[in-house]
């Protein structure tokens, strides 16, 4: 009996994360269309509901009502399995994301590694979708996507090693706790090059512009999901936006103090903003990065394929590796106030 109530409680907690997430995805698409519209001197969607507020709902209803078309030459099982394989890891990754000091579904010590593992297996959905569609464009799209994700994962993994070194833990809550102090205690200063690389790799991992070659409308129609329609397509769409939000939240957690108050340590402002819950700060920080992703899409043209590969392998990986060495010295010599008590002196005391 106790087992059942415990299980139900976990399911309820999962629902408490996923339902707002799906809603956030719906309104991220709306925000994207509106923002890009304004950036291009258009109005954006404004027909459904007041100021177009109901547009995402209308889109969802449309996608739900549409037929899921399976191409005649497709491998039916794999074709229908692919969207599920794509969306499952992108939802599963949210299990270890903390929304406040105590507000986390799975408070695991291997959280960072788990995130990396989950983002890396999403690539199966893409590869299988492209292959099972039995279409040239889809296959080209999935090949591009797979090689891009595999390449940028390495830079991302190295960047996370930097975060792990700075935070001294793989637990996301502990990483945020290590940044406690003030906005200048956050890891964006000592980890600045890693922050830039993590952020750009995150954009590349989610297949967003200017790294959206897997979809590349002008060359390969819609890339790996060109044969999908209706709900199956909606799953790809949902997963992509859920990944965007995840990357934004993770950047806020790793480099910008997560749920910590940005006015911490400033005499009057801290007291004045003390009532704001940590979750709000986290979501505000994440919203800023989400806005940056949309901004990037409106600003930059698509990269050429060899440029993407060059950037990933020849620029990002060497820079992160060099910065990891710098960081080692930084931590061990305790420069500044970020790594108090973790240097050579502390090591000597412990042994």
């Amino acid at each position, binding site marked *: 009996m106790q087992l059942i109530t415990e299980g139900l409680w976990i399911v309820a907690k999962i629902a408490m994360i996923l339902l707002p997430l799906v809603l956030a995805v719906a309104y991220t698409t709306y925000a994207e269309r509106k923002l890009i519209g304004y950036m291009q001197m258009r109005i954006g969607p404004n027909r459904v509901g007041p100021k177009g507020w109901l547009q995402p709902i209308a889109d969802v209803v449309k996608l739900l009502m549409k037929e899921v078309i399976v191409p005649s030459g497709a491998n039916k099982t794999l074709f229908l399995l692919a969207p599920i394989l794509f969306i499952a890891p992108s939802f599963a990754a949210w299990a270890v994301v903390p929304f406040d000091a105590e507000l986390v579904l799975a408070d695991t010590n291997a959280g960072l590694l788990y995130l990396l593992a989950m983002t890396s297996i999403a690539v*199966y959905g893409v*590869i299988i979708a492209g292959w099972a569609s039995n279409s040239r464009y889809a296959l080209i799209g999935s090949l591009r996507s797979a090689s891009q994700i595999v390449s940028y994962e390495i830079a991302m993994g190295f960047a996370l090693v930097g975060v792990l070194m700075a935070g001294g833990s793989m637990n996301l809550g502990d990483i945020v706790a290590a940044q406690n102090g003030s906005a200048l205690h956050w890891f964006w200063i000592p980890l600045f090059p890693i922050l830039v690389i993590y952020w750009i790799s995150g954009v590349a991992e989610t297949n967003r512009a200017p790294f959206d070659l897997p979809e590349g409308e002008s060359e390969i129609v819609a890339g790996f999901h060109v044969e999908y329609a209706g709900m199956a397509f909606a799953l790809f769409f949902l997963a992509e936006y859920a990944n965007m939000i995840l990357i934004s939240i993770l950047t806020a957690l790793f480099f910008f103090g997560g749920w910590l108050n940005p006015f911490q340590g400033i005499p009057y402002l801290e007291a004045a903003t003390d009532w704001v819950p940590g979750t709000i700060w986290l979501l505000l920080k994440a919203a800023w990065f989400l806005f940056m992703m949309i901004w990037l899409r409106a600003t930059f043209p698509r990269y050429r394929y060899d440029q993407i590969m060059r950037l990933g392998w020849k620029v990002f990986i060497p820079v992160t590796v060099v910065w990891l060495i710098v960081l080692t010295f930084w931590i061990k010599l305790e420069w500044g106030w970020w790594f108090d008590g973790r240097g050579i002196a502390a090591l000597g005391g412990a042994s």
Partner: protein
Amino acid sequence: MNIETLVFYFFSAITIVAAIGVISVKNSVQAVLCLVLAFFSAAALWLLLEAEFLAITLVLVYVGAVMVLFLFVVMMLDVDFAAMKQGFTKQLPLGLLVGAGLFGAIYWVIRFEVFGNDKVPEPAKSEQGYSNVEELGRLLYSEYFYPFEIAGVILLVAIIAAISLTFRGRRDRKGQSVREQHQVLKEERLKIISMESERPVSSSDVNSESGGAS
């Protein structure tokens, strides 16, 4: 039977079925996916042993990286099944012999007398705050430092060997030098010419054009 035993049998069953699927499924892409599933459920089994670091690393390295490249290669292959099945009966006795030998060797190593329930004690439950990552790091970088570093060097040698075997440095390829592209000056690519501003076309031309359009 407690819940852990149930979970153990569930994932063991999946592992075995998936492993059999790897060798019995006709479609080679599906065989690779079966292998992925086997890795995944093996990782779940490791999680039951509280080896969370190793379990997640298994997913990250094998499922997330190695098998992706594997799937890549298999998808690109154009396998001729008829040619593969040729001479199946002729090779069968030899295959069975090798299979039996391999099975015997593995069985001899992990037979019940060596790894039986009474031989290996049940691992003690780790106490609160025990971190598997820390423990592994400590062992790898102290006791097993040399084996660890040597394994790393061997892998590096393998990478260099693979690159030098496959890289045929063609000098006539049309590669792009990014350095040259960056050093391009505006004057080399662009010519700015001052031009007389266009005069408006005569009214009769405008009339005929708009008439044609409407």
